[in-house]
């Protein structure tokens, strides 16, 4: 049974504090996994600690999407982690930083004329 849908904001490391307590989506690079804790770095080079709901098989250095709720400036309680199939992805950090800033600051995106 699917969980009910919960809209989320797309953010980067520097925005964690601003979205504390809200559901977010953030792309991070896996540094190391130990049990249910993932240590990762964000696109704007913040080191983050992510509490996982279950096991994660991601390779070190892989980019994954973390969906969850931030607490404070560097911790996220993850609801899920989305992995991508491609190998050795060169993820555009600048592009993602630009996106996370834009998408949270544009006016009236959902207007359609």
């Amino acid at each position, binding site marked *: 049974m699917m969980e009910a*849908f919960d809209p989320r904001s797309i953010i980067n490391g520097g925005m964690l504090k601003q979205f504390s307590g809200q559901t977010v989506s953030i792309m991070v690079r896996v540094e190391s996994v130990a049990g249910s804790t993932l240590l990762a770095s964000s696109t704007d080079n913040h080191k983050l600690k992510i509490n996982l709901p279950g096991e994660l098989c991601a390779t070190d250095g892989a980019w994954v999407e973390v969906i969850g709720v931030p607490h404070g400036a560097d911790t996220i309680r993850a609801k899920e982690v989305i992995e991508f199939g491609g190998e050795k992805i060169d993820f555009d950090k600048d592009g993602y930083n630009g996106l996370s800033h834009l998408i949270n600051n544009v006016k009236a995106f959902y207007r359609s004329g």
Partner: protein
Amino acid sequence: MNDSFGDFNATQTATAGAASNQKGEGIVPLVIKQIVDAPEGNIELFGMQYAMACVVAIVRNIETSSTKITYTLEDHSGRMDAHYWLEEGDALKAPEVMLNNYVKVYGTTRSQGGQKTLMVFKLLPVLDPNEVCTHLLEALNARYRAEDYQNKGGSSGVAPSGTGSISDFTASQSSAIVSGLDPKQQAVFQAIKSNVSEEGISRKELKAKFSHISDSELTNIVDFMISEGHIYSSIDADHFICTM
């Protein structure tokens, strides 16, 4: 590709006397909330109509029946169902997708009882997170460009010429954007396109419409569009019709 429904002749333009809803062209990148919130009818953004939408989303559920596969798609903004219609013997040709992974979906939208569904034309797995990021940037771009185009009077300069009957010819408000043209060229192109007479619009009429553009610049614009294949000259070198 799943083209067992609808008419995907996306290069067709409305003909004079056609039914009141004109066909849109092109594919617009959207997020799910934009589709879910949209009113019934064709895919439209600030008056610009499109043939199809493209979304990038996570597959949350897959349900197979004898006639179709229903995918539940979710992105950061919303969730919706997508139908992939099966033809006989198609079960083997169904797209290979994994649950809780990203896919890119092209399709048309349909309203049923107030709910929107995506009718899938093509569904592909997304292996590179850059594709997700790019899609969102493209969706942002499309939405703000469309508004910009509308504000700059996108359908200006389409006053009917001559005495041809244009009451049913809603394509005169067509805002199909031809890529590779700058705003001035785009405006001239629209003027040529919206002219419905057999011989096309004359150079004289174009000069009158675009009095702020010098003769030599207008000539350059027209020559460029001819070389690109967007327009051609008709009864003589001073009358133009568009190729689309």
